[in-house]
C-alpha cells in the first residue's frame, strides 16, 4: 500500500513541476513574440494568394512570394507577371489601390522551321539532348544556325507550351507565358521573345549567303530582299543575308508573306505558327 502511495506522489510532483515549466515558458514565449515580432504587410499575403504560384522566375525575381514583397515594397506597377498577364496586373493594382500599366503580352517564337526539310551532315548517335550535342559538335544540322530538334526546350517548359513537330520546336502561343525558360535553355539561341499581337515573323537565323542556304535548307532565308521591297511600312530590317521584321513598325498587313519564295515568313493563327503547309498537314506531336 505504501509503495503505491509513493508512486502517486511522484506522479503528482512531476505533473506540477512540468506544468510550472510550461507556464513559465509560455510567458517567456509570449513576451518574445511581442518583443521580436516582425511587422508584415498583410498585402503581401493577399497578393501572393492571387499570383499563379509557378515560381518560374520570368518576372525577374526568384519566386512568387518575392514578387509580392517587391510589389508591395516598391509600389512599382511596371513589375509584370507574364504568367498572369494583364488581368493579374489589374487585380494587383486594384488591391494596391493604384493604376495598372498596360503591358504587351510576349510569346516565345522559334526562329527556325528547318527540321526535317533541312539536311543533316551526319547521323548523331549520342545522348539525345541538344545540350549533349553541343558539347561534341557545335551544330547538328548542316545549317549552323538551326534547331537541333532534340527538345531541351520541351523539358524546360513548365506550361506544356512547346513541342517538337517534324524535327523542329513549335510554340503554342496560347499557353506560352513568356517565362524565358526555353530561351535560356536553347544552346543555339534560336528562340526569341516577340509581342503576341504581331502575328508575322521570319523564321530563320541563317546569315549565310543565299546559295549556301539553298543547299542545306528548303525554308531558309536566302536574302533575296523581296520582302523588304514589298513592305510599305519599312518594318523589315535587312543585314548580312537575313531579313528580320521589326515588331514596332509591323502592322500585320501580311504583304511580305506572299512575296517570299521559300515560305520563310510565318503567320501565326489561333496561337499556332502556320509553318510550311505540307509540314503542318501531317504534323505529329512527338513529345
Amino acid at each position, binding site marked *: 500500500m505504501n509503495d503505491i502511495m509513493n508512486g502517486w506522489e511522484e506522479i503528482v510532483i512531476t505533473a506540477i513541476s512540468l506544468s510550472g515549466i510550461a507556464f513559465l515558458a509560455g510567458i517567456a514565449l509570449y513576451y518574445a513574440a511581442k518583443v521580436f515580432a516582425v511587422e508584415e504587410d498583410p498585402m503581401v499575403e493577399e497578393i501572393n494568394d492571387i499570383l499563379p504560384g509557378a515560381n518560374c522566375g520570368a518576372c525577374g525575381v526568384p519566386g512568387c512570394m518575392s514578387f509580392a514583397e517587391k510589389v508591395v515594397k516598391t509600389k512599382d506597377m511596371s513589375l509584370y507577371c507574364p504568367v498572369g498577364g494583364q488581368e493579374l496586373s489589374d487585380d494587383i493594382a486594384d488591391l494596391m489601390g493604384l493604376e495598372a500599366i498596360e503591358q504587351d503580352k510576349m510569346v516565345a517564337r522559334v526562329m527556325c522551321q528547318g527540321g526535317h526539310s533541312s539536311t543533316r551532315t551526319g547521323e548523331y*548517335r*549520342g*545522348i539525345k539532348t541538344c*545540350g549533349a550535342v553541343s*558539347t561534341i*559538335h557545335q551544330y547538328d544540322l548542316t545549317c549552323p544556325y538551326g534547331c537541333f530538334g532534340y527538345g531541351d526546350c520541351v523539358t524546360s517548359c513548365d506550361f506544356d507550351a512547346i513541342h517538337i513537330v517534324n524535327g523542329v520546336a513549335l510554340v503554342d502561343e496560347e499557353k506560352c507565358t513568356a517565362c524565358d525558360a526555353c530561351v535560356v535553355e536553347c544552346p543555339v539561341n534560336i528562340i526569341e521573345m516577340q509581342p503576341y499581337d504581331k502575328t508575322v515573323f521570319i523564321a530563320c537565323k541563317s546569315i549565310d549567303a543565299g546559295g549556301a542556304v539553298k543547299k542545306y535548307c528548303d525554308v531558309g532565308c536566302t536574302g533575296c530582299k523581296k520582302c523588304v521591297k514589298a513592305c510599305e511600312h519599312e518594318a523589315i530590317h535587312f543585314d548580312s543575308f537575313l531579313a528580320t521584321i521589326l515588331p514596332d513598325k509591323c502592322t500585320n498587313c501580311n504583304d511580305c508573306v506572299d512575296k517570299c519564295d521559300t515560305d520563310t515568313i510565318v503567320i501565326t493563327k489561333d496561337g499556332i505558327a502556320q509553318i510550311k503547309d505540307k509540314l503542318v498537314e501531317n504534323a505529329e506531336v512527338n513529345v
Partner: protein
Amino acid sequence: MLKSTFNLGGIHPPENKKYSEGKKIEDISLPEQISINLNQHIGKKAKAVVEKKQEISVGDILGEADGFISALVHSPVSGTVKKIEQKMTAAGMVESTLTIDVNIEKTTEDSKKYETKKEVDIDQTSKEDLLKMIQNAGIVGQGGATFPMHVKLSPPPDKKVDTLILNGAECEPYLTADHQLMLENADAILLGVRIIQKISNVTQIFIGIEENKPDAIKLFEERISAAGMENCKVSPLKTKYPQGGEKQLINAITGREVPSGKLPFDVGVLVQNVGTIFAVYEAVFYEKPFIDRITTITGFVKKPGNFRIRMGTPFAHAIEDGAGGFIDEERVRSVVNGGPMMGKSIRQLDVSVMKGTSGIVALSDHEFVYSEEGPCIRCGRCIDICPMGLMPVTLADDTIIKNGAELLDSLDCIECGSCSYVCPTSRKLVHWIKIGKSVYRTWKQKEESYKTDQ
C-alpha cells in the same frame, strides 16, 4: 624485368595495330585546296594576320599568338588565301578558317629550304634561344591535348622539374604513328631530348614504351648507350589502356601521383610525346615550323599506313590519296579524328587535319556496333576500371540531377573512355561526364562575371 604500370584500373581493348604496324612513313601529295583554322591549341585562339587574296609561301605566319597560352599558326603551303570563313573543324567546333588555294609547284620549291640540316651546337646555344626557336615554330603537344610547347617548358619559377618522361606508350588501339616515328628517327628524338634537357634542367629522363613495341624498346636501349646518355633510361610499360595518359604514365614510371586539379610540374615531372620531341628537333636543326605531322590512317581503308601529312589537308584527300580510299564506302559507319577511344567522329569529310590529329580511323559496320543506352544495372565495372579512381556512374548521374558547383568532381575525369567501353548496357558515361564538365565551366564563368561586375 618487372614492367611498370599505373596502379588503378585500366582495360585491354583489342589493339588492331596490325593494319598499319611497321609501314614506312610516306608523304601525302599536296591537295589543291587546304583549310587551316586558327584554334588548333588549348588557350587563346590565334589572331589572323593575312588577308583575302594575299599571296603566301610555306612557313609564313597566318595567325599570331594572342596572349601567353597561345601558339603561332604557320602556312604549310604556298598559294593564295581564297577566303576566311566560319567553318566546322575536325574537333567539331566552329572556328574562323582560312581556305588556301595551293600552288603545288611553288610549294614543292619552297619546302626545299627545310631539307638542309643546320649546324647547331646545343651546348653552346642559350636556353632562351632554344625556347624562342620552339615558340617561333608554333609547336603544340601532339598527344591530343595540344598544349602550347613553350608554355609547358616554362613552368612557374617556384616549381622545380627534375624528371622528363618521353611518352612513347601509344596506348590507343589502331594508332602506330608514334611507334613508326620512334623506329625511323631514334637518333633525332634523342637529340630532341637533349634540347629539352638543356631548357628545363631535368636530371633524369625516362622513355616510356609499351611492351607491345619490343623493337622500339630494343632500338632505344641501343641508341642511348651509343650516345652515352647516362641519365636516360627506357622504361618498358605493360600494355594496358590508358598507359599513355599523362597522369597514368607519371604514376607508372615514377610512382608519383598528380593531385586533383594540379599539373605534372606540381610533382616535378615534364611529359612530352615523342612526336612533339621530333617537332622540336626539326624546329631547332632545320628551322622548320610545325607544318606537318605523322599521322596514322587506318581501319577500313585499302592501304592503311603511317603518313607525313601537312596541316590543313582535308580528310577526304588524305584518305583517298594516302590510304587508297575506303574499302567499301557504303559500309563506313564512322571516321574518327584521333584514336578510337578518345577521338571524335567527324561529321563530314571536308574537315582538315589539325595539329592534334594523331590518327584518322575509319570504322566499318563490323567494328562500329551501336546499341541504345540502357539503364544502369549497378555492376560497378566502370568503377573497377577507372584509371583515375573515380566513380563514373555517380558522376554521370550527377550531371542529370545536379547543377553548378556540385559538378566540380567531374573535372578529375581524363575522358579516356574506358568506362563507356566496359559498360554492359552501353551507357554513354564519358559523354555525360563531359556535359557535366561543360555545365560546371559555364557556371564558373557566370560566377566570375558576377564577381567582376561587383
